[in-house]
């Protein structure tokens, strides 16, 4: 699988600012993308995810490392000869060409026969459900429609990998959700590998077969959505993807830890305990998702309700554990909503927690 797909090995890239400073946009990035895999590059703005995409497209040179596609070296090939295509964040449609001609552009560059171009363009328009819009110009389309044209224009070339640079960023939330489902459907039907850049963790979870989390030019974790959500390997990943409680941990004598100064438990019960305790020293925290915390009179941790908000499907409760430490809890809306100021106890199942050192 790997030899046929996209393989990125130890790629680095440093930008020099005109004022003389330099930014390490990519720092030893390695990643494999399978032939029909949907991989999401997730990270905050400035983490290097767009730079990586541009390096694969050939719009940016890399300083070191190599990129291969289907077993052949890609990073030394000029952009117009790479079997990858990009859906740009700003769409970058040609304003002086009709929708049809925009989509045909890439095939015209390949000097395909006219009849073939016509047929493939029609098929691409059908795929993105814009068949009636062939003769319009981009200016006559809505943002969502322009987005679809950009997608069709790149897909019609049947690239080995389709690169998508925050393609849904400019759309409103509802349209975004709709396009996410659409993208997933299209990706399954064409069977092309998608490498999708976003800073939106919900989008990443919804779309990716796998998610690669980037921070400061490095890939900090790669895994399925379940893996990165349930088993974050670093504090950054735990914090960036979804909501997380990071509770201070003190190490005790042989094999036990105390969480938030209240809850003593055997370290071995917690995932990642060995590595974290060896590596982390005093910086170790216990990560637990708000939905994994239960309000339970028999719980080990006690505090005062500082906030309780009804959110429709569920209830968000913030519990003050003293010394400025808050634990966020998400419970079912059908449960009783605690009063602000009420003393409560919470229970955390160690199996749903992780110890993180960095």
């Amino acid at each position, binding site marked *: 699988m790997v030899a046929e797909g996209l393989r990125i090995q130890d790629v680095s890239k440093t930008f020099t600012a005109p004022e003389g400073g330099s930014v390490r946009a990519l720092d030893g990035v390695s990643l494999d993308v399978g032939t029909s895999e949907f991989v999401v590059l997730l990270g905050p703005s400035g983490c290097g995810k767009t730079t990586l995409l541009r390096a694969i*497209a*050939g*719009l940016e040179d890399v300083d070191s490392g190599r990129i291969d596609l289907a077993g052949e070296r890609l990073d030394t090939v*000029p*952009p*117009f*000869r790479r079997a990858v*295509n*990009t859906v*740009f964040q*700003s769409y*970058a*449609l*040609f*304003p*002086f060409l009709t929708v049809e001609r925009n989509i045909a*552009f*890439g095939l015209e*560059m*390949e000097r395909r026969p006219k009849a073939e171009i016509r047929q493939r363009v029609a098929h691409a328009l059908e795929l993105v459900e814009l068949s009636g819009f062939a003769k319009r110009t981009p200016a006559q389309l809505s943002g969502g429609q322009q987005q679809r044209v950009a997608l069709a*224009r*790149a897909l019609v*070339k049947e690239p080995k990998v389709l690169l998508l640079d925050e393609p849904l960023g400019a759309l409103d939330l509802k349209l975004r959700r709709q396009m996410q489902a659409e993208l997933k459907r299209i990706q399954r039907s064409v069977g092309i590998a998608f490498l999708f850049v976003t800073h939106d963790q919900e989008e990443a979870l919804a779309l990716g077969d796998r998610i690669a989390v980037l921070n400061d030019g490095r890939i900090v974790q790669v895994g399925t959505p379940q893996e990165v959500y349930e088993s974050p390997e670093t504090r950054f990943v735990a914090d960036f993807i979804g909501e997380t409680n990071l509770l201070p941990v003190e190490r005790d004598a042989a094999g036990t830890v105390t969480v938030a100064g209240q809850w003593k438990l055997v370290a071995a019960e917690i995932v990642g305990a060995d590595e974290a305790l060896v590596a982390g020293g005093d910086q170790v925290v216990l990560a637990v998702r708000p939905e994994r915390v239960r309000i339970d009179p028999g719980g080990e941790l006690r505090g005062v309700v500082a906030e309780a908000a009804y959110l429709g499907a569920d209830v968000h409760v913030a519990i003050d554990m003293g010394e400025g430490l808050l634990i966020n809890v998400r419970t079912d809306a059908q449960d009783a909503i605690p009063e602000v100021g009420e003393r409560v106890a919470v229970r955390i199942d160690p199996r749903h927690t992780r110890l993180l050192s960095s």
Partner: protein
Amino acid sequence: MRVGTRWLASPALGFIAFMVGGPMVVIVWYSLRTRGPGGVGVGDGLTVDAYERLVVTEDFAGNVGFDSTYLEVMWSSILLAAATMLVALAVGFPTAVWISNRPRHLQPLLVLAVTIPFWTSILVRTYAWIVILRETGPLASGFDAVGIDLPRMLNTRGATLVGMVYTFLPFMVLPIYAAAERFDHRIAEAGLDLGATPAVVLRKIVWPSVRPGVVAGCLLVFIPAIGAFLQPELLGGGRSLMIANLIQQQFGASRNWPFGSALAILLLVVVTVVLVVARRAAREARVVLS
């Protein structure tokens, strides 16, 4: 147009109609009259003599024959305007593109620099060129000092062209800059991404984007250049007669107002034809020119 705005605009529209249409009516009317007594003004008789004279000559024996002298003058004006346009394009296009690629805060300054010549009178500036180009001027004496003997520059066609390009260059630079400045570099990247080589990107993506600016710049240079009068007179030494100088002569020394008016109409027709052709070309390029 809503009724309210039409009412508001009507004084201005009336003024423009009068100032443009009035002289035009007068010129057409003059061109159809006989010469006035002593060549000043026009006479009472109605005639198409002035138009005949554009293409026909009568010798002393009364033989009538085709005469291309005046059409050749028109033609040399067209050639001069075309040459001015092409040189201005060759100089102005790279300049405009260069300005559009400077850091954003520098661009307004550079555009301002392009318009600096407008701050003084065209007459003063053209006289300045006489000073520069004459045999005792800084250019000739500078080259002389290093042992290079320059040929005569003032009172040549070359001097006329230099003066014309100098005068009309800003009209080429500004519209091209406006188009180049709006150009979205990301669509060039999209072209590369879709398999277009850099040369093809230039031809199929960059060029269509800046073409409206180039068409506008060419028209803004060509049309006034065709009627240019000052540069052929002052820098060309009046050696090569241009249509505007010919018209001026008819109302001055030659004292033939009807013929001068007919020449003016000829110039108007030529400019109109150029505009119509350019408009058609521009419409194909999906540009609206107004």
